[in-house]
């Protein structure tokens, strides 16, 4: 008897932001056809789309909240919530993780869109660029809410393909093209490896749905739990976990899947780099948390992932030291931040592995850190972009005397760099505080907290060098004059976020409270 798979109208409300993005992206294509090369109009449409999607996020939020307290991470052992939170044949989930990450991703997308409002002028098809940004953000949202292995794969590929084009969008610059090709080769291979891992999981469990859905009382999660007890199937599951890690590690840029990062970030247009380093990474982490925390046995992966987290922090921070180009510096710093977030994931897994009650540190750590990262990293990149638009350089040495040429910009940069280093009074402090707390609170992971501590000190050294150059070296060029509304808004939002998350940390965490168990 075929089960009713009719998606009711209400179920579509759970992907309302995605639908808004889809419509907006297509509208942008129409704009490009009807009013070609109208950067201003297309920027407005793009910004409007993301803002509307952010507003539309209220719909799934509201729906999820109707069922009472929402778990942060849906668990198959919680049948009351599997019914209310899964929709569209069990492919989409709107638990706390999905909703929180969607908010993060949309905010990131919106700031990037604001940053590129004027940047689009250099392209022949600005609206197409914006539409790709919208579609890529759409893909990241789908990834965050995916509750099906196939959905994860499709969303990841959608995300990747849009990103490949965006990276190479400066098609007359060889570096941009080179970046695109590198990104594509790396992405295609890792995606294939991941798909192989997923096919192993499918072969073992006979389903791709992570959670039991209407008409079927088993999902990957429940199946794996029984299969894990068998010595025959356990190795295969662990191999599958390793293979899936390759694909997600590529998206989140953790060592050893990070080699593409510096070249790709450096070669791509700065707004695209901003998008990759924040939105794409956050989406990858959403999937990583969902797959690893809820599918695979934590006691098996915590050890290896802890080592990867340590390596990521160490390597990202050490490699950033000798950089002379601000984009490459921020690229390596972005690797190191992936390490910090991974530390939060590992701490979470460790609590699970030890069978301990999760503390707020573990639940808040990863999403809050990524939320702060959105604001601070996009803020820093908005400064970089503003600087580039007037001076046409990304060399750190050329930032000399920025504090005199444009005090506001220099102070903003200091603020964002402080935040990236995790020094109060900034949002970055709250994020790092939570992640350090998570690692210290998890039994046996204090060494990871020590690694994070040491690498943070290292990171201060290279962030500080930028401050040093801006404030202590004499200016070589005249005062900066250029003003631009898009970047101004982006900077404003970033500053607001970075400051407000610090000052109103209690209230900010309260927004996530809905999702605590």
């Amino acid at each position, binding site marked *: 008897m*075929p089960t*009713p798979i*009719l998606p009711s109208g209400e179920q579509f409300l759970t992907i309302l932001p995605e639908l808004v993005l889809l419509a907006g992206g297509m509208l942008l*294509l129409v704009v490009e*056809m009807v009013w070609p090369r109208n950067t201003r109009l297309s920027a407005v449409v793009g910004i409007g789309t993301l803002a509307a999607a952010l507003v539309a996020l209220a719909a799934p939020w509201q729906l999820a909240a109707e069922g009472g307290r929402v778990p942060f991470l849906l668990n198959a052992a919680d049948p009351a919530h599997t019914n209310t939170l899964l929709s569209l044949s069990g492919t989409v989930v709107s638990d706390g993780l999905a909703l929180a990450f969607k908010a993060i991703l949309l905010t990131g997308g919106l700031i990037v869109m604001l940053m590129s409002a004027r940047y689009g002028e250099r392209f022949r*098809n600005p609206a197409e660029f914006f539409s790709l940004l919208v579609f890529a953000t759409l893909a990241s949202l789908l990834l965050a809410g995916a509750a099906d292995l196939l959905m994860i794969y499709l969303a990841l590929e959608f995300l990747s393909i849009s990103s490949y084009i965006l990276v190479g969008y400066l098609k007359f610059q060889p570096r941009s093209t080179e970046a695109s090709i590198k990104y594509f080769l790396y992405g295609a291979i890792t995606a294939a490896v991941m798909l192989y891992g997923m096919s192993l999981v499918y072969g073992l*469990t*006979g*389903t791709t749905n992570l959670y039991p859905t209407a008409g079927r009382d*088993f999902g990957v999660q429940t199946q794996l739990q029984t299969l894990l007890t068998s010595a025959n199937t356990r190795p295969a599951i662990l191999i599958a976990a390793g293979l899936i890690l390759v694909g997600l590690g590529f998206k989140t840029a953790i060592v050893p899947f990070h080699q593409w990062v510096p070249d790709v970030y450096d070669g791509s247009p700065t707004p695209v780099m901003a998008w990759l380093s924040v939105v794409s990474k956050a989406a990858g982490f959403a999937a990583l948390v969902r797959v690893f925390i809820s599918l695979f046995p934590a006691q098996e992966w915590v050890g290896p992932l802890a080592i990867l987290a340590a390596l990521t922090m160490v390597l990202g921070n050490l490699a950033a030291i000798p950089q002379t180009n601000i984009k490459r510096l921020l690229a390596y710093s972005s690797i190191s931040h992936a390490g910090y977030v991974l530390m939060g994931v590992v701490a979470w897994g460790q609590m699970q592995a030890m069978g301990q009650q999760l503390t707020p540190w573990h639940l808040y750590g990863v999403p809050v850190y990524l939320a702060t990262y959105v604001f601070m990293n996009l803020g820093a990149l908005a400064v970089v972009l503003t600087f580039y638009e007037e001076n046409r350089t990304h060399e750190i040495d050329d930032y000399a005397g920025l504090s005199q040429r444009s005090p506001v910009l220099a102070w903003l940069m200091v603020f964002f760099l402080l935040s990236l280093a995790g020094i109060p009074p900034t949002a970055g402090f709250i994020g790092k505080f939570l992640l350090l707390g998570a690692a210290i609170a998890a039994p046996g992971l204090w060494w990871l907290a020590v690694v994070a501590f040491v690498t943070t000190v290292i990171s201060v050294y290279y962030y500080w060098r930028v401050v040093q150059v801006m404030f202590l070296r004499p200016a070589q060029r005249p005062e900066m004059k250029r003003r631009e509304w898009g970047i101004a808004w982006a900077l404003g939002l970033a500053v607001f976020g970075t400051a407000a998350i610090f000052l109103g940390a209690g209230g900010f965490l309260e927004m996530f409270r809905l999702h605590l168990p």
Partner: protein
Amino acid sequence: MPEGPPGVTDFQAIAWFAILAILFVVVALGLSRLIQPHRPKPEKLTTYECGERPIGQAWSQFNVRYYIFALVFVVFDIETIFIYPWAVRLRNFADLGIGPFMFVEMLVFLGILVLGLVYAWRKGVLKWV
């Protein structure tokens, strides 16, 4: 439909399908090899290029437009593959009372693709210079 895990019977079907496919190729090629006349000529060993005499190396540069056309073709190829099963099942959907819904859904899908095609067209992608 097999109830419960793991769907071994599905895989058996796939295995049979694979074996049959290989057999079909082997049988067809083997049979033709057995009954074909055998008259070798040097011309027959050259690369087939629509009856023309092959010119230059195989490592020549292609116009990028070939790829774009190929991509556009692939998109609509996939679309066809997607529409077939949908069309076959549409009556069942209608019986379930969701016929209009499924119909509209396919229209949306086609609409997206058409918009893409129109965009490509407007941007001159389909013009062969």
